[in-house]
């Protein structure tokens, strides 16, 4: 049953544009803190660019560390947006309405920051341009399309472009709402951005069709992106323990697990920050909680399969890797934290309706999932490389330097800052979608009660 409160269009405009038209008291301090952390990360990155990758903890054979872990993590988070938004749109799930925009915007910023991690990882940033782009005519050297590291930029570029356009197209009607509520220069800017939108039946029809069409186009891209990210590992000849045919679906479902949890975290923060209790309701958290149980369990199945299949062949390197991952300091406690926070803490809690309907519990459990999922990526990347060589004198360990820690922390600050800045300029809940939900809702009499119901399409 829908627990909506009937609101007028003017009330919806005022509620959902409250931060756009007038900043909250906490807003600028929050921007300041995120910008400061990001600035620290930029300084750390500048030091690494000037003085070299020697400032990081990377050393042979472990040349992939925090940055690659963080890259995979943010790619995972980016899967939330389109997966959630597209599937819910295509299935016409009524409770999608408040979630889609935040999910799509989170996708865009996560992808940007994921790509930034690769720039951090390569050290000499400018050299990256000669790898994926076919322009180095002077030397006659062109990208090696047989490398998974070239498939990656093609997939991420497609996904990022598609996600940005998805957000932009759905924003146009809401920009018209802001245009109608502003004056002066802001009015002129929003008039320009809203492209002369008037809300004719033709424009609305195209807007709805566009939502479905872009969803249908982006869904296969989202599956391909994380599959290709997994092939960065699975298609690498050098590291035997990464050779796993299950990696692509395992990475995709892991990305969905962490991504949907990320969206729930953002939604709850928005609910508190902007007093959007009437829009991001407990019924939405309840539905997302149920969805997360299914996703988390599917992910856990792939996780178990990956371990079982790798141990079944009893290869020395594989056994050494699992021993390192599960039984050896410092990876063993990390493994326990990962499995508890990623699955065994949140999923049993989500089985309780009271937990699924509690914003605070959902916030705690979804953050817990992402702590676990970050560690999961670390445990795939680093121990694999540590036991890369068959000869034991080539085995090594890795600990991140302070520069890597600051730069990785900076990526979280970047996404926070971008979300904050976005919310100051554009509404983070799609206004027209909420209004459409109001139009389609109708009161029906059941016994002595009038309850909201959705009209069934003829």
């Amino acid at each position: 049953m829908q627990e909506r409160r009937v609101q007028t269009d003017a009330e919806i405009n005022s509620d959902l544009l409250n931060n756009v038209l007038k900043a909250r008291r906490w807003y600028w301090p929050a921007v300041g803190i995120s910008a400061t952390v990001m600035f620290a990360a930029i300084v750390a990155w500048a030091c690494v660019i000037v003085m070299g990758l020697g400032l990081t903890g990377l050393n042979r054979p472990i040349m992939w560390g925090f940055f690659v872990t963080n890259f995979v993590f943010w790619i995972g988070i980016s899967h939330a947006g389109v997966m959630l938004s597209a599937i819910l749109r295509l299935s016409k799930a009524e409770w999608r309405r408040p979630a889609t925009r935040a999910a799509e915007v989170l996708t865009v910023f996560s992808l940007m920051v994921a790509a930034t991690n690769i720039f951090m990882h390569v050290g000499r940033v400018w050299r990256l341009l000669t790898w994926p782009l076919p322009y180095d005519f002077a030397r006659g050297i062109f990208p090696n399309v047989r490398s998974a590291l070239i498939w990656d930029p093609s997939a991420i570029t497609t996904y990022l472009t598609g996600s940005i356009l998805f957000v932009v197209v759905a924003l146009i009607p809401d920009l018209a709402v802001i245009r109608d509520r502003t004056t002066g220069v802001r009015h002129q800017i929003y008039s320009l951005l809203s492209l002369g939108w008037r809300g004719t039946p033709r424009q609305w029809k195209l807007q709805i069709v566009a939502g479905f069409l872009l969803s249908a186009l982006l869904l296969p891209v989202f599956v391909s992106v994380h599959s290709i990210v997994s092939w960065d590992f699975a298609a690498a000849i050098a590291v035997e323990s990464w050779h796993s045919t299950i990696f692509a679906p395992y990475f995709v479902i892991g990305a969905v697990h962490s991504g949907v949890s990320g969206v729930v975290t953002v939604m709850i923060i928005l609910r508190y920050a902007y007093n959007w209790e009437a829009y991001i309701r407990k019924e939405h958290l309840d539905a997302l909680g149920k969805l997360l149980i299914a996703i988390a369990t599917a992910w856990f199945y792939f996780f178990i399969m990956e371990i079982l299949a790798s141990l079944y062949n009893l290869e020395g390197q594989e056994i050494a890797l699992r021993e390192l991952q599960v039984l050896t300091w410092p990876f063993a406690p990390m493994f326990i934290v990962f499995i508890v926070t990623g699955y065994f803490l949140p999923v049993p809690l989500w089985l309780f309706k009271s937990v699924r309907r509690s914003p605070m519990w959902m916030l705690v459990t979804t953050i817990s999932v992402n702590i676990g999922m970050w560690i999961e990526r670390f445990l795939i990347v680093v121990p694999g490389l540590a036991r890369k060589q068959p000869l034991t004198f080539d085995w090594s360990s890795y600990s991140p330097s302070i520069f890597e820690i600051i730069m990785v922390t900076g990526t979280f600050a970047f996404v926070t800052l971008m979300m904050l800045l976005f919310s100051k300029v554009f509404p983070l809940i799609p206004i027209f979608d909420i209004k459409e939900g109001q139009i389609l809702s109708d009161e029906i009499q059941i016994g002595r009660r009038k309850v909201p119901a959705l009209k069934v399409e003829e």
Partner: protein
Amino acid sequence: MTQMLGLFKEAEKAAAATEALEQSGYGSDNFDILTGSPYPEGAFGEREVKHRLYIFPFIGAILGISTALLITVGTQLAYPMVTGGKPILSIPTMLIIAYEGTMLGAILFTVLGIFFESRLPNPRAGIYDPRITEGYIGITLECSEDRVNSVEKLLKRAGADDVLQET
């Protein structure tokens, strides 16, 4: 010609106004409905919206796959290094990039199609009122000077809260 805009608070009254307009000789091609949110199609008796948006992704996909194949074939032939005795053109890897190129082309052309079919950007959009995004329903039409008064009366009789004119 004068542009007129009748503003209605309720959808039922707006639907009644379009019916009255049709009875007085204005076909559904002569007036347009402006709303702040999408209403079910045909709610105001407006004409059916026809579009060709579905063609755009196909055109984009063809262009996208062609470009991707051109880049992948071109880069491999430009530096024809034989690796392990295998053919220069690696078909499986080309398929991956071709797939991404196809999807990118389809997405880009879909978005172009959305703007083209929505008639956006539209800098000279015509008569408009900000109350539309506050829930009012606008009925806009063009009529000759001598019919302005009769149309205004008709819209008001149907329940318009306000009728605006622009010449």
